[in-house]
């Protein structure tokens, strides 16, 4: 099996220490986390982690089960890039005088969809939301114009096929799991979950 980029989406309780619990699942197996984001989710009180790694599907599936095994984790999904819509945010700081004196820079920024966040006498900050290649490209473009600072955020992703977590959460909240109220989530997705 070949490695590729997977985005893991984890729905959790909002609990101190959980970030560490999840992070060590990767570090224990010497797996590098390419990007990690924590944020609220569509459900009040439920937290959402977005983690990007480069691995084989087999490894990713096992990682997700280890993540779900943590007491405060509700659910972990993994997706390939074509199953999600994703973005990263990048910010660029350049000397204001360069922008002011070069019409070319202004045009380049416009072409890359950058918008201005701050303009000061000494520097200007631009931001671009997009995918890795796009934000990378702008670094190259700005380098000759004295790019002072660059930073890029973690990936955030929306799962195309997801109906959100509201309904799922109801299942989790049943006190006495009844036969039909609670599906057996793993086995329901036998094909997805149990084939190698």
């Amino acid at each position, binding site marked *: 099996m070949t490695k590729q980029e997977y985005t893991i989406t984890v729905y959790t309780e909002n609990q101190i*220490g959980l970030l560490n619990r999840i992070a*060590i699942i990767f570090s224990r197996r010497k797996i590098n986390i390419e990007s990690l984001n924590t944020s609220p989710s569509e459900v009040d009180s439920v937290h959402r982690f977005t983690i990007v790694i480069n691995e084989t599907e087999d490894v990713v599936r*096992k990682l997700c089960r280890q993540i779900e*095994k943590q*007491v405060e984790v*509700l659910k972990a999904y993994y997706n390939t890039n074509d199953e999600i819509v994703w973005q990263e945010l990048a910010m660029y700081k350049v000397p204001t005088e360069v922008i002011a004196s070069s019409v070319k820079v202004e045009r380049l920024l416009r072409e890359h969809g950058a918008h201005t966040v701050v303009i000061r006498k000494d520097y200007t900050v631009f931001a671009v939301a997009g995918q890795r290649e796009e934000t990378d490209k702008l670094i190259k473009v700005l380098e000759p114009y004295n790019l002072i600072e660059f930073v890029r955020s973690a990936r955030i992703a929306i799962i195309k096929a997801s109906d959100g977590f509201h309904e799922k959460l109801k299942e989790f909240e049943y006190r006495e799991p009844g036969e039909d109220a*609670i599906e*057996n989530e*793993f*086995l329901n997705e036998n094909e997805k979950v149990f084939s190698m």
Partner: protein
Amino acid sequence: MEALLIEKENKSATPAIQVSGSVAVLEAFLAEGVDTVFGYPGGAIMPIYDALYDYNDKLKHILVRHEQGAIHAAQGFARVSGRTGVVFATSGPGATNLVTGLADAMIDSTPVVCITGQVFAHLLGTDAFQETDVINITTPVTKWNYQVTDATEIPAVLARAFYIAGSGRPGPVLIDITKNAQLQLFDYNGYQKCEHIRSYRPKPIVRKEYIQEAAQLINAAERPFVIFGQGVILGKAEKEFQKFIEKAGIPSAWTIMGMSAIPTDHPLGVGMLGMHGNYGPNVLTNECDVLIAVGMRFDDRVTGRLDKYAKQAKIIHLDIDPAEIDKNVKATVPVWGDCKETLPLLTELVEQKVYPKWLQLFKDYQQKEVEKVIQEELNPTGEVMTMGEVIKTLNELTKGDAVIVTDVGQHQMVACRYAKYNKSKSNITSGGLGTMGYALPAAIGAAYGDPSRTTIAIIGDGGFQMTLQELGTIMQFKPKVKIIILNNQFLGMVRQWQQLFHEKRYSFVDITSPDFVQVAKGFGIPGKSISKREELKTSLQEMLEQDGSFLLEIMVGKENNVFPMVPQGRGVAECVLCREEI
């Protein structure tokens, strides 16, 4: 901790009384049915110990000699009683001394709740005296851990702790409580057990389709083989398991952790799996057509080389932990669930059968093993005693009724290979972590776990020296522990590997020992050391008849090896019976 706060609001309207966080901890214990605590006091847990002073009549506190001893004792207690073991330790070094035991309990799925004291909340992160980041140190080796800084959280957090430790696949939980929370007075509304955590699914609803698929495979099988682990014991499903194998007529082998779930002389019991398990079950794993794994996790010590493991077989895997299914061995039919529920469903659907020819094959292999290994091990022709004959003689005296706690090494493998058991929860050993020093404290805990049974610790001369300070605990509290030291004057198991795989370059395995009998005597424990076969039976008898603890050192062959063996990196079918075959 939002979920906890929500739960609190729903509480019944018992009139509140003011109690301290410390009292709330002890009240939680009582409500959970705890009667024995293993612990060691210190600065950061003093308020709890102060409260304990008034609970002397309800909670037995066993003062160990080292916190590692406390947690191993709690593990031994849990394994024998089927209840959750409980530990107290102070912050800093007290807490870090628990780490080995937590790792052991984690990998062997033992339910333990540890309460550690912590510095005052306002001192967290200031490198205060005896402050360590216990939560982060213990995260990888706990099923759950949580730091309490406000006493009002204590009832709900402890309820969760006990629920999580004991339900689903059990495991260790650590609750770190800052000193201010132990001292803090708050309105206490009583204790409510936890029965549900929305993000935690201890076990699933069983899916009948998979039971049906499994039954079909079993009914069509010609050479089915059951391998089972501690899941049967943890699931309290021994009866259900026995019914299943008896109806289906399937030969069954145990892992070291599953041992004693069925009586060792059960007609369908074909022995122990694994690196030093029996010949037949190892080799025939690669000849069965359907392999039914029940409550076991395909540890590498059981499977040997994975790419040579049961490749010919369809595999049915019954486990409560979905992360175990397909982790090491791909299941043809996964049966995710509590085996107490899944086994009866399966039993209903399987046909009543016998496989005399197939079972005979196990017996033939057993015969080979007897000729090449067992005969000489149990009835040695040489002058020096073997570990095997000690266990054989012990079996004759205990009739298989004792709880046997073993340490780690050759003696562990020999004891598990030859000990007889009639009752479940009788074989207590450190399986997954292989923790030397486990046996003595675990035996102390085991003796409290079921005082009606005889507890025998079997320990190597090396391992005994790792935790022998717990003799002090025995001296003071008088649990009845029979201690057998099988002394081969070596770190035997490592020596065996050096002999077999490192050209006999014995690198630091030669270990000298104190006069163990004198040591025991210093702790007020009677003892005896023997080296002659004629003394064996009478000495064991003397040990067993002693009303109280006894230490018996038995000098055994220095360079005996444990066989059969599946050498590391080989397949189970490449199990060897002697040195020459390696």
